[in-house]
C-alpha cells in the first residue's frame, strides 16, 4: 500500500515513553538500586530522595501537596483503591456511589464488586454528546451517598466532563468526589483542589511515562480523606498502599510530570491543529462521516469518527499494516458487542461498529497525519465498494425498513 512508515495514532491506549524519561529512570535500575524504605544506609537514602523528588514533580503538575500522592501500579489500581477504599472506610456514613455508564471498566468493575459487597451504585446515563446531565447527577445524590466518581476525560471520545460544576454539586451535597483523570493528567491543566476533587487516579503510561506506575491523589486537609488499603504488607504510602516502591517507575512518572508541566500547553495547541486537520479532511473527503461526542469539550488530541456502512475492524485492516488506531467495533470479542461508551451516547449499534478512534500524541507529525488521511480515505472507499448496505443506501433503500436476520 503506501509508505512503510509506522504511524501510531493510539496514544489513548498507551503513549511511548519519552526518551528523556527513560534516561532519568536508567540509573535507578542498577546504579541506585536501593529500597526507598531502607532508612539506614545510603542506598536507601538515595532511593528515598529520588522518590521524594518525583512525588514533588507530580504534585507540582496537579498543584497539590506532595504528601497527597499515593503511588500505585497504575490507574486501574488507583481506581480500585479509591472506590473500594472509600466504600470500606466510610461504611458508617453510607453505602451509595454515583457514577456514569461511560466510565472506564476499572471504575465500573470496581463498582460491580462493591455492589456484591453490599454497596449500592447508581450508573447515570450521559447525554448524546457524552456529557453528564448535572441535574440528574444532583438528583441522584441521596442521604446514604458517600461518593461521586466521574472521569475527567473519556478514553474513547475524549469528551471532558464539566468538572467544576460537578465539584460544586458534590460540595453542596457534602459527598466525596473522585475522578479517574487518566486521560487528562499531563495533557490538559488538571487542578483537583480548585475543583473540589478528593481522590484522583492517573497513570504514567498515558503521559509519556513508563507502564506499571500510577498514582492516587488523596486530599489531606479539609476534609482529610482516608481510604482503606487494598494491598497490605508493610504499611507503605501512609498505610494506604503497601509494597516496595517501584523507584525507577516513580522517577519516570516524576520526570514525565515535569516535562508535561512545561510542554503541555504548546503540545495541546499543536495536536489540536493536527487533529482538526485530520477530522476536517476526512469529513470533506467522504459522505456519511460522523464525529462522536461533544466537540467543544474535548481533549485536544482525540477524535472518534464513524464511517457509516463500513465495519470498523475491517476498515482498520485496510491500513493496519502501518497505522495503529483503535475501533469501537468489537468483532474480536466473544460478545460481538460494540463499544458501550458509544452505545451510551445513543449511537445505534451500526454506527458504533463503524467507528475509529484516532488519538494523536507527542511524537505525531503532520506528515503522518497527511498519510493517514490518504490511507483512511482509500480504506473507507474500498470497504464501501464491498459493503452491501452502502449499496442499498446509495440505491435509496430505507435501511431501517429492512428486516435483518440477526444472529
Amino acid at each position, binding site marked *: 500500500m503506501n509508505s512503510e512508515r509506522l504511524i501510531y495514532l493510539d496514544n489513548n491506549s498507551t503513549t511511548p515513553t519519552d526518551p528523556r524519561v527513560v534516561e532519568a529512570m536508567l540509573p535507578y535500575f542498577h546504579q541506585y538500586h536501593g529500597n526507598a524504605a531502607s532508612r539506614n544506609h545510603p542506598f536507601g537514602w538515595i532511593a528515598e530522595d529520588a522518590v521524594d523528588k518525583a512525588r514533588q514533580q507530580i504534585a507540582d503538575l496537579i498543584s497539590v501537596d506532595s504528601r497527597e500522592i499515593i503511588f500505585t501500579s497504575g490507574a486501574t489500581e488507583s481506581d480500585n483503591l479509591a472506590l473500594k477504599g472509600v466504600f470500606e472506610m466510610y461504611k458508617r456514613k453510607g453505602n451509595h456511589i454515583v457514577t456514569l455508564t461511560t466510565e472506564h471498566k476499572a471504575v465500573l468493575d470496581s463498582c460491580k464488586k462493591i455492589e456484591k459487597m453490599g454497596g449500592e451504585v447508581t450508573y447515570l446515563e450521559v447525554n448524546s454528546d457524552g456529557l453528564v446531565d448535572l441535574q440528574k447527577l444532583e438528583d441522584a445524590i441521596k442521604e446514604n451517598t458517600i461518593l461521586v466518581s466521574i472521569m475527567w476525560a473519556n478514553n474513547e471520545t475524549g469528551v471532558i466532563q464539566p468538572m467544576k460544576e460537578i465539584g460544586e454539586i458534590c460540595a453542596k451535597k457534602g459527598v466525596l468526589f473522585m475522578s479517574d483523570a487518566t486521560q487528562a493528567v499531563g495533557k490538559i491543566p488538571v487542578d483537583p483542589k480548585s475543583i473540589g476533587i478528593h481522590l484522583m487516579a492517573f497513570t504514567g503510561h498515558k503521559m509519556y511515562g513508563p507502564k506499571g506506575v500510577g498514582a492516587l491523589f488523596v486530599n489531606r486537609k479539609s476534609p482529610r480523606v482516608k481510604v482503606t488499603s487494598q494491598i497490605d504488607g508493610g504499611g507503605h504510602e501512609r498505610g494506604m498502599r503497601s509494597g516496595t516502591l517501584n523507584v525507577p517507575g516513580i522517577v519516570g512518572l516524576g520526570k514525565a510530570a515535569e516535562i508535561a508541566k512545561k510542554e503541555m500547553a504548546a503540545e495541546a495547541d499543536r495536536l489540536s491543529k493536527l487533529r482538526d486537520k485530520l477530522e476536517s479532511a476526512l469529513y470533506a473527503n467522504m459522505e456519511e462521516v460522523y464525529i462522536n461526542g461533544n466537540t467543544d469539550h474535548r481533549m485536544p488530541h482525540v477524535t472518534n469518527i464513524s464511517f457509516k456502512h463500513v*465495519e470498523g475492524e475491517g476498515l482498520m485492516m485496510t491500513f493496519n499494516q502501518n497505522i495503529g488506531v483503535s475501533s469501537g*467495533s468489537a*468483532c474480536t470479542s466473544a460478545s460481538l458487542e460494540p463499544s458501550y461508551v458509544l452505545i451510551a451516547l445513543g449511537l445505534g449499534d451500526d454506527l458504533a461498529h463503524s467507528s475509529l478512534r484516532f488519538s494523536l500524541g507527542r511524537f505525531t507529525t503532520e506528515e503522518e497525519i497527511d498519510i493517514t488521511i490518504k490511507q483512511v480515505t482509500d480504506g473507507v472507499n474500498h470497504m464501501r465498494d464491498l*459493503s452491501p448496505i452502502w*449499496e442499498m443506501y446509495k440505491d435509496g433503500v430505507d435501511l431501517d425498513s429492512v428486516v*435483518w436476520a*440477526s444472529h
Partner: protein
Amino acid sequence: MAYSEKVIEHFKRPKNVGTLDKENKNVGTGLVGAPECGDVMRLQIEVDEQSNIIKDAKFKTFGCGSAIASSSLATEWLKGKSIDEALSIDNMDIVEELALPPVKIHCSVLAEDAIKSAISDYKKKNSIEE
C-alpha cells in the same frame, strides 16, 4: 490478533465482488446478518437451469476481514458446483481453509447461512421443492 495470509489475500484482493440482477429468475440472493451485529453478507448465485450448476457467484459484505474473506472464499467454491453440492459446504471447511481463530468462527457460519439462503431463494423463485 494476526490474520492468516489467506484471510489477508482475500481481504486485499477479494474475488467476485459485485451484484447480480436479483430480479433475474436464475439468480438467488441471500442477505444475512445485521448491521447492529457488525456483519452483513449478501451472496448471490446465478444458476444454469438445465444443469443446476452455479455459473456465477457474487458477494458484498459489511464486516471484518474474516467475514469478507469467508464470503470471498464461498463465492469461489460455489462456482461450478451444482446446487446440491453447494448445500454441502460446511462452515468448518471455511474455518479450516482460512485458518480462522475461534473468535471468528461466526464469520464462517454467516457465510454458510448466506449460501443456504441464496440457494433457498433460487429454489423458491423456480418452485423447486427444498
